[in-house]
C-alpha cells in the first residue's frame, strides 16, 4: 500500500504516488531553475508541463488511476535531462559544463523551512517542528519550555505564540521542506558566500556576453545592464535579510524580557498585595477594588498585547514564515483596544474624582499664656513612605533622616491602615486678643460635597498642656477615603505682644513663617519670638550663635595658631577661627558664622 498525493498539472488532476511525486517535483523544480532567467521562461515551462500532463494521462486509465514511479521515469526519459535540453534557451552559454554546475548549486537543495510537525506532536507539534529545524531532539525543547513555564509562564506564552505563528506541515512538499537542509544562522553566511561566488561567475559570463554582443553588433547591452542592476539588488537583498534576522532576534529576546517584567509586576501586585508599595498606591488612587482589577487587566492587555505581537513578529521574521493569519492581527488589535478602553474608563472615573477641591477650616481657642511653648508630637505609628520616593525605609529612622513635606505615607495603627501626610505649621498675627489655632484641611473629590467630606475626615490632633502646645507631625486619612491630594496646615493666630518659643522638634513642620528678622525656617527654632504690629520678631537672635556652643577663643598669646584642630587668628580687632564646628569671623563691626545652621552675617550697622 502506498500513499498518494493529488496534484494538478496544466489543469489536469493526477493521483500520484508520494515518492513519484517527490521525484517529479524535484525534476520540474530543476527545469524551472534553468528557465527562470531565460526569456519566455514561464511559457516554456507551461508548454513542458502540458506535455508532461499529456504523457501522464496516456499512462493512466480507469483501471490504473495512479501515476507510478515508472511513469515518472518514462516521462523524464523522453523529456531528457534538464541540463541536456535547457542549454538551448541560453543561446550564448559559454560552455555546457559551466552552466550545468551553476544551475546545480542553485536548485538542487530544498530550502529548509520551519513547520509544525503534526506527525510527531504532543500538543501542537511546535517542539518537534522546531527540533526538525535545528536538528535537536524535540524532548530537550519540551523540557526547556516546561522549565520556562515556571518563569512567569514565559514558556506557555512562547508555546502559544509559536503555535499561532508557525504553520503546520500539511502537504508532502511542506513536510519535505520541514526536514530539508539545515537553514540556520550559520547557513546565512554560507549562502552569502555562495552568492558572492556566483556573482563572480556571472560577472565573467556577462563580460563574455558583452564581448559577443559587441562583435555581433546586436542591440542588447541594455539587457546586460539590467542583469547587473538585478544582481546589485540581489546583494542588497541579502544584506537586508541578515539585518532582518538580527531585528527578529532582538524582537523575540526583548519581547520575552518585557513580558517577564510585565508579568512579575502586574501579577506580583495581585499575588503579594501587602508588600508592594505600587499596589497600595494604585489602591489609594482608584475608587474601589473592582477598578483596581479592571485597571490591572487594562494595563496587562495594553502593554502585553504589543509585547506578544513583537515576539510573534520576531518569530515570523526569524524563521521566514510567510504564512500569515489575518485573524491574529485583527484579534490582537481588538484585544489591545479593549485594554485601552479599560484603562481609559478607569482613568476617567479616577480622574473625575480629583476634579473639585474643597477647604475646611476648624477653629480652636488656645488658653492664653504670655509665652507659649510650641512642640511637635511624633505620632506613634508604623509607616512607610509611598510617594514614589526611592528609599522606602520603614520605621521612624528613615523618616527622620530625610523628610520632604509632600511625601505621603501608609501607616498602620492597631492593624488599621491610614494614609499619612505631613502637617505644616504657620504663625500669623491675630486680629483679636485671642490666641487661635486654625486648622485648614484640603481634599479633592468628584464634587464639592465629597471633597468637603474628605477634607473633614482628615484627622489631626493638637494638645495643649498648660503653656505647651503639642502639634502632631502627621495627619491621618482613612484608607477608605483614598488619596485625593489631602493637605493640612495649622495656623497659629497670635495677638500682638504674645511670645512663642519654637522647639527644635518643629524644624520639619514650620514652613515659610514670615518674620521681621527674615530668618529662614531652620533658624527660627530654639528661639523666642514676639508678635509685633509688623510681625514676628526674634527676641534672642542678637547673637545668632546663641544656640551654638560658645566659641572658645584662644588667648591672645599666640596671634596665629595653626594646629590639627584648625586655624586660629587672634588680632586686636579681629578674631578668626576655623575648626570642625565651622568658620567664625568676629570683628568690631560684624560677625560671620558658617556652621551647621548655614551662613549668618550680623552687622552692627543696621
Amino acid at each position: 500500500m502506498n500513499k498518494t498525493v493529488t496534484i494538478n498539472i496544466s489543469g489536469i488532476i493526477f493521483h500520484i504516488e508520494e515518492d513519484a511525486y517527490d521525484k517529479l517535483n524535484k525534476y520540474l523544480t530543476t527545469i524551472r531553475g534553468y528557465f527562470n532567467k531565460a526569456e519566455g521562461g514561464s511559457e516554456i515551462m507551461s508548454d513542458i508541463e502540458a506535455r508532461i500532463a499529456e504523457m501522464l494521462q496516456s499512462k493512466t486509465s480507469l483501471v490504473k488511476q495512479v501515476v507510478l514511479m515508472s511513469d515518472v521515469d518514462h516521462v523524464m526519459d523522453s523529456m531528457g535531462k534538464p541540463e541536456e535540453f535547457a542549454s538551448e534557451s541560453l543561446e550564448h552559454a559559454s560552455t555546457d559544463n559551466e552552466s550545468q554546475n551553476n544551475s546545480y548549486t542553485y536548485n538542487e537543495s530544498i530550502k529548509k523551512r520551519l513547520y509544525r510537525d503534526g506527525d510527531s506532536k504532543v500538543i501542537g507539534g511546535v517542539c518537534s517542528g522546531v527540533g526538525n529545524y535545528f536538528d535537536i531532539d524535540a524532548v530537550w525543547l519540551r523540557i526547556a519550555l516546561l522549565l520556562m513555564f515556571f518563569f512567569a509562564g514565559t514558556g506557555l506564552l512562547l508555546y502559544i505564540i509559536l503555535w499561532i505563528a508557525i504553520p503546520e506541515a500539511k502537504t508532502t512538499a511542506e513536510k519535505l521542506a520541514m526536514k530539508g537542509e539545515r537553514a540556520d544562522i550559520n547557513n546565512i553566511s554560507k549562502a552569502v558566500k555562495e552568492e558572492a561566488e556566483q556573482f563572480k561567475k556571472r560577472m565573467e559570463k556577462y563580460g563574455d556576453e558583452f564581448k559577443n554582443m559587441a562583435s555581433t553588433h546586436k542591440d542588447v547591452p541594455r539587457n546586460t545592464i539590467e542583469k547587473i542592476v538585478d544582481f546589485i539588488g540581489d546583494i542588497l537583498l541579502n544584506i537586508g535579510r541578515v539585518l532582518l534576522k538580527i531585528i527578529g532576534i532582538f524582537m523575540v529576546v526583548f519581547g520575552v524580557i518585557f513580558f517577564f517584567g510585565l508579568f512579575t509586576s502586574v501579577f506580583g501586585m495581585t499575588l503579594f498585595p501587602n508588600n508592594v508599595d505600587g499596589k497600595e498606591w494604585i489602591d489609594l488612587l482608584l475608587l474601589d477594588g473592582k477598578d483596581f482589577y479592571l485597571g490591572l487587566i487594562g494595563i496587562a492587555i495594553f502593554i502585553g498585547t504589543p509585547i506578544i505581537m513583537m515576539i510573534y513578529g520576531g518569530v515570523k521574521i526569524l524563521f521566514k514564515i510567510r504564512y500569515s493569519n489575518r485573524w491574529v492581527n485583527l484579534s490582537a488589535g481588538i484585544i489591545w483596544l479593549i485594554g485601552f478602553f479599560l484603562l481609559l474608563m478607569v482613568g476617567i472615573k479616577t480622574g473625575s474624582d480629583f476634579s473639585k477641591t474643597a477647604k475646611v477650616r476648624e477653629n480652636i481657642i488656645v488658653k492664653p499664656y504670655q509665652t507659649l511653648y510650641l512642640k511637635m508630637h511624633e505620632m506613634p505609628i508604623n509607616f512607610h513612605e509611598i510617594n514614589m520616593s526611592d528609599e522606602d525605609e520603614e520605621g521612624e529612622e528613615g523618616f527622620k533622616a530625610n523628610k520632604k513635606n509632600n511625601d505621603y505615607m501608609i501607616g498602620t495603627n492597631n492593624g488599621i491602615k491610614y494614609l499619612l501626610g505631613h502637617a505644616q505649621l504657620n504663625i500669623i498675627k491675630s486680629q483679636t486678643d485671642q490666641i487661635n489655632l486654625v486648622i485648614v484641611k484640603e481634599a479633592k473629590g468628584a464634587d464639592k460635597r465629597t471633597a468637603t467630606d474628605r477634607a473633614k475626615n482628615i484627622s489631626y490632633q493638637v494638645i495643649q498642656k498648660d503653656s505647651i502646645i503639642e502639634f502632631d507631625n502627621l495627619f491621618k486619612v482613612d484608607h477608605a477615603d483614598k488619596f485625593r491630594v489631602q493637605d493640612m496646615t495649622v495656623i497659629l493666630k497670635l495677638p500682638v505682644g504674645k511670645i512663642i518659643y519654637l522647639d527644635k522638634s518643629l524644624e520639619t513642620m514650620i514652613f515659610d513663617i514670615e518674620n521681621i528678622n527674615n530668618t529662614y525656617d531652620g533658624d527660627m527654632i530654639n528661639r523666642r519670638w514676639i508678635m509685633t504690629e509688623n510681625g514676628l520678631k526674634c527676641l534672642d537672635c542678637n547673637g545668632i550663635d546663641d544656640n551654638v556652643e560658645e566659641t572658645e577663643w584662644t588667648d591672645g598669646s599666640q596671634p596665629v595658631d595653626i594646629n590639627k584642630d584648625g586655624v586660629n587668628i587672634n588680632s586686636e580687632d579681629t578674631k578668626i577661627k576655623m575648626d570642625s564646628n565651622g568658620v567664625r569671623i568676629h570683628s568690631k563691626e560684624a560677625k560671620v558664622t558658617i556652621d551647621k545652621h548655614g551662613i549668618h552675617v550680623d552687622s552692627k550697622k543696621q
Partner: protein
Amino acid sequence: MVNSENTKAQMRKGVLELCILSILSQGDAYPTEIIENLKKTKLVVVEGTLYPLLTRLKNTGLLTYRWEESTSGPPRKYYMLTEIGTSYLKELHLSWYELVDAVNKTINKQD
C-alpha cells in the same frame, strides 16, 4: 578530451531549426507531432530540447500558434509558419544545400 557525442549534439542542434520549419511548412502541427516526426529520423533524442526552441522561433516572429482542444489532455498549441517564417525557410533551404554541397566536396576530397 575528445567527446564525439558533444559534437554530434551540436551538429543536430544546428539543423534542428531548419527541420522544425520544414515540418511546419508541410502543415500545422503541435509539439508532440513535431517530436514524433523528428524522432523517426533520430534528429531529436529528448523532447525537452524542442520547447525552448519553439518558443524562441515564435518570439522572433517566424512561428505563430493557435490553441486547439484535445480529447486526451490539456489544450494543444498548434504551431504554423508566418510569412517571415516561410521566406526565412527558403533562405535556409538554399544555404543548406550550399552547405551540404560544400561539406560533401570537402569530405570527398579528403577521402
